[in-house]
């Protein structure tokens, strides 16, 4: 697949795309149905809200503790993995990460890389880099396989093809999978994918995976999945490359169960996934299968920027469960593709400004009603609405004293907005002026224009009252 075929859209055009998304009834139905289902499944896993709060407090504590020791834990992880025979690489951005992986693939003269689900590799656009180097990168998670087949990007971090109906997938398979005939049976569709991808697992020289938790003390990479493609990619090919953000490390093995338990319950409402795959070594002497070489790529890509500020650092507590998007009224209406970022929904709104800069993502933090549903369900208690407000400020203002500017700081600053808010602040901080202005506004109400930009497209025009509030109160007291 050529790079140009990707239907990936620039994050900067978010606002234009939301209009098209909300006007698409099929898309809205797909998301509404799926999100309602996922919300109900999650709720059923947490019947005891007090118990849930205790678990969330522990999970938040573990993530905050791990982040507070992040550089030490990364070094410990590297030492332990190296001692276990796993090679560790560091990348500051997506290009570096891709170059490392292309390098490993070339060293093995690889023609095919099979990929387990990895959002970090989506973040670095690894597939395009592999294709450019002449190596096929094949997504093997069923959902990822479907979106790749259609030249798309995932629209949800846990359920990549959630925007598609089974009829659309049936048509896609019939058109693009050699030998597949049209069927709307989900079992048959999965059977087609299974048969095709099993051939690929056998022939691939390299398998790629993400990482859900990396345990520093034991040098263990943990992968959470249902399908078994993650196990295939990490056990069948001769080389396994794992890629992860630097924030995924925890100190001890015992820190994993609380996070894992909340991850699967929050994500898909499952008490546990089919597989929890813990990898600590490559194939050892005497072992008959498993990769002969294992690599881990640690990616920064803006994470150190979030880390540099103690408020923004909470973004890195994320365990990528997707619950915030499942519960977001905006995400449910516009769908994942509208965002144009790897991570859509609330987590994308607070993370993408670091990985991509505010210049292209400044509209994302405004895509929220600040209803707070995301923070309420977040298993690691990230204060998402507070971060959204903070980033709205960073998008429109210079950094406050003592804070380093973020990439693209102030990118959305506008003279008009500054003038309007400046005038508002002046009027509201001077009582006499405030009374004069409101008096004038009520007296000139007949001049209010009937068409008021976007407001009147679906609402009645705004009009000042006949009298100011002060006048009205004085009148009532007088009575």
């Amino acid at each position: 697949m050529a790079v140009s075929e990707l239907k990936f859209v620039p994050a900067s055009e978010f606002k234009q795309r939301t209009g098209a998304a909300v006007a698409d009834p099929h898309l809205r139905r797909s998301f509404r149905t799926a999100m309602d289902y996922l919300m109900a499944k999650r709720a059923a896993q947490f019947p005891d809200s007090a118990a849930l709060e205790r678990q969330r407090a522990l999970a938040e504590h573990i993530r905050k503790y791990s982040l507070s020791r992040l550089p030490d834990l990364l070094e410990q992880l590297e030492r332990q993995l190296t001692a276990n025979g796993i090679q560790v690489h560091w990348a500051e951005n997506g290009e570096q990460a891709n170059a490392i992986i292309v390098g490993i693939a070339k060293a093995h003269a690889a023609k095919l890389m099979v990929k387990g689900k990895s959002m970090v590799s989506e973040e670095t656009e690894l597939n395009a880099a592999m294709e450019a180097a002449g190596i096929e990168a094949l997504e093997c998670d069923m959902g990822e396989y479907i979106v790749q087949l259609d030249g798309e990007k995932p629209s949800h971090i846990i359920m990549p093809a959630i925007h598609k109906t089974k009829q659309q997938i049936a048509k896609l398979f019939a058109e693009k999978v050699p030998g597949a005939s049209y069927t709307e049976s989900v079992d048959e569709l999965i059977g087609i994918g299974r048969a095709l991808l099993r051939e690929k697992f056998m022939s691939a020289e390299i398998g790629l995976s993400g990482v859900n938790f990396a345990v520093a003390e034991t040098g263990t990479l943990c992968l959470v999945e249902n399908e078994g493609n993650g196990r295939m990619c990490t056990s069948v090919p001769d080389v396994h490359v794992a890629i992860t953000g630097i924030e995924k490390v925890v100190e001890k093995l015992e820190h994993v169960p609380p996070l894992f338990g909340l991850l699967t319950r929050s994500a898909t409402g499952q008490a546990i996934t089919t597989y929890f795959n813990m990898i600590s070594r490559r194939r050892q002497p005497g072992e008959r299968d498993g990769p002969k070489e294992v690599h881990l790529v640690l990616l920064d890509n803006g994470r150190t920027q979030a880390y540099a500020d103690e408020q923004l650092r909470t973004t890195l507590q994320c365990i990528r469960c997707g619950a915030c998007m499942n519960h977001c009224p905006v995400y449910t209406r516009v769908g994942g593709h509208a965002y144009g970022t790897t991570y859509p929904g609330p987590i994308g709104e607070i993370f993408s400004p670091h990985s991509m800069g505010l210049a292209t993502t400044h509209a994302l933090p405004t895509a929220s009603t600040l209803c707070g549903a995301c923070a309420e369900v977040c298993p690691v208690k990230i204060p998402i609405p507070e971060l959204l407000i903070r980033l709205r400020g960073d998008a429109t203002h210079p950094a406050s004293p003592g804070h380093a500017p973020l990439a693209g700081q102030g990118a959305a600053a506008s003279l008009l907005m500054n003038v309007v808010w400046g005038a508002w602040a002046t009027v509201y901080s001077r009582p006499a002026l405030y009374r004069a202005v409101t008096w004038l506004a009520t007296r000139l109400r007949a001049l209010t224009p009937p068409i008021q930009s976007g407001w009147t497209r679906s609402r009645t025009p705004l009009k000042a009252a006949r009298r100011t509030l002060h006048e009205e109160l004085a009148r009532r007291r007088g009575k």
Partner: protein
Amino acid sequence: MSARERILRRLRAAPQSLAPLPPDVCGFYAAERKRSAGDDRTQRIARFCGQMAGWHGEVIPVTRGSWAQTLRQLCIAKKVGSLLYGRNTPYAKVLEDAGIGGLTPYDRPVDVWKTDLFRDIDAGFTTTRGAIAETGTLIVWPDANEPRLLSLVPPIHFALLDADQLHGTLIEAMTAQGWGAAATPMPSNALLISGPSKTSDIQVTVAYGAHGPKELIVLLLVGEGEL
């Protein structure tokens, strides 16, 4: 300066006004356990079976004397023409003597028979290190005798589980078995398995047999009186 050094330098330069104490995970679970009613062996077995059924896994109670014959009958009923297993496990001898047709040891590196493994093997048999009742989960640590693909590639996975090794929760299993301790370091690959492989990627409809086994059948070793 390398990428590694630059990343670590940026992390070390960040302010650290709060330094949380190490979380007391074991203390947390001990307190949670006190709140719950507690469970005995019978309840744990019932819990495990119920949860495993929820994952579409089948649990068949067997005894030390009967399991191999039960497995043989299952293979006949399911038309298993080739059953892959690991040599040199404590159960291998009984298995080898059970008269199961098409019994095939996984005794060569995968590299020399990958295609046959993927195309010709109908079922795989593994032992387990125990299980977790709370979530209906098998603990499987592949090794030189029972390689990783034994529980992944064949369309049916038969797993032998000793009910004595049934733990309440994951943390209890980890603690009891000393995962990662000096005496029991983490193996190359350790697995938790809860049911056959599945996906809900098409319209959130669950389909079993995504990439791994389509069926998981657990032979649960219990005492004669527990059958």
